[in-house]
């Protein structure tokens, strides 16, 4: 089952949301860099979920696991990764990746982080023409920060609560392992024990791959 349309839908959603909240960011006095970081983190997390192949995915498949390994990511994400591409978790791959990163770049980048914020952006883009290393380093720094915060129990935002609500809304849920369809219904019909339903505008996660659909039709027997 090809899920290209699902991937394209996700790409459209990311692009549209980022463009449409720009005004909100501006009126809240938040700079463009923060919005770009939001986009980057969002895209990276989508790549890590491996529910589809996205246009922003790194060329080198393995480079994803570098930030993954030394960060504090939800176990569910790690689970799904382990299940889909078990080969990546071998020690050989890991050591290979760390060598992939150019040795000279690393100290240069770290240095720039200590300087003023505005400078940081310019320097990163100059030294790293295709932006890949910069993105990775930024991400690593962020994830290190995040895990530090998690350790000190500082997260108490409203957002956490709402997230918990979604995830815990039903005790039967199985998290990322679940095959789930989220959609709208048009008609649900039952004749004796036979059920038919017409659904539309859906997102589905099936066997760790995500799909988008315009319409869906189901026939089931109770």
């Amino acid at each position, binding site marked *: 089952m090809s899920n290209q349309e699902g991937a394209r839908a996700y790409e459209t959603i990311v692009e549209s949301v980022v463009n449409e909240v720009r005004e909100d960011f501006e009126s809240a006095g938040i700079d463009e860099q923060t919005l770009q970081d939001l986009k980057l983190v969002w895209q990276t997390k989508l790549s890590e979920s491996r529910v589809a192949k996205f246009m922003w995915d790194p060329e080198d498949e393995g480079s994803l696991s570098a930030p993954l390994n030394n960060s504090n990511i939800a176990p569910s994400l790690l689970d799904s990764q382990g299940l889909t591409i078990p080969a990546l978790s071998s020690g050989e791959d890991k050591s290979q990746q760390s060598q992939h990163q150019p040795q000279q770049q690393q100290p240069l980048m770290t240095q720039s982080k200590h300087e003023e914020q505005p400078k940081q952006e310019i320097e990163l883009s100059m030294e790293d023409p295709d932006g890949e290393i910069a993105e990775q380093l930024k991400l690593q720094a962020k994830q290190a920060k995040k895990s530090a915060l998690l350790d000190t129990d500082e997260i108490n935002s*409203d957002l956490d609560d709402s997230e918990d609500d979604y995830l815990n809304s039903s005790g039967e849920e199985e998290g990322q392992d679940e095959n789930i369809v989220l*959609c709208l219904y048009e008609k649900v019909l039952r004749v004796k024990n036979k059920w038919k339903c017409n659904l539309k*505008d859906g997102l589905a996660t099936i066997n760790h791959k995500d799909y988008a659909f315009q319409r*869906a039709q*189901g026939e089931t*027997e109770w």
Partner: protein
Amino acid sequence: MSASGYYELYRRSTVGATLVDALDTLISDGRIEASLAMRVLDTFDRVVAETLKDKTQSKLTFKGHLDTYRFCDDVWTFIIKDCNVKLDQTEDIQGNTVVVDKLRIVACNSKKTGE
């Protein structure tokens, strides 16, 4: 349904959960306020609804044994066991069938979207 008139249901999808995660990172780093994150999620609700409505063509079909059905607060939930799922991109590109042990469907009423 959120104040903007769109369902929040898609926040449970991968694209929604990863956005929630990313926003959470920015909040815990002290870079944005939770209220701004909420506005982003409201926008997300609308963008997902519009994207699925206007930009998708695929058709999904499924058959299986209906294990559980529930209708509560205008939301249908079905749990289908031994379910055959098929996704056709277009008339020409037909997908093959995938069999899953268990499929959960959560569906909100299409007549109440913010149109």
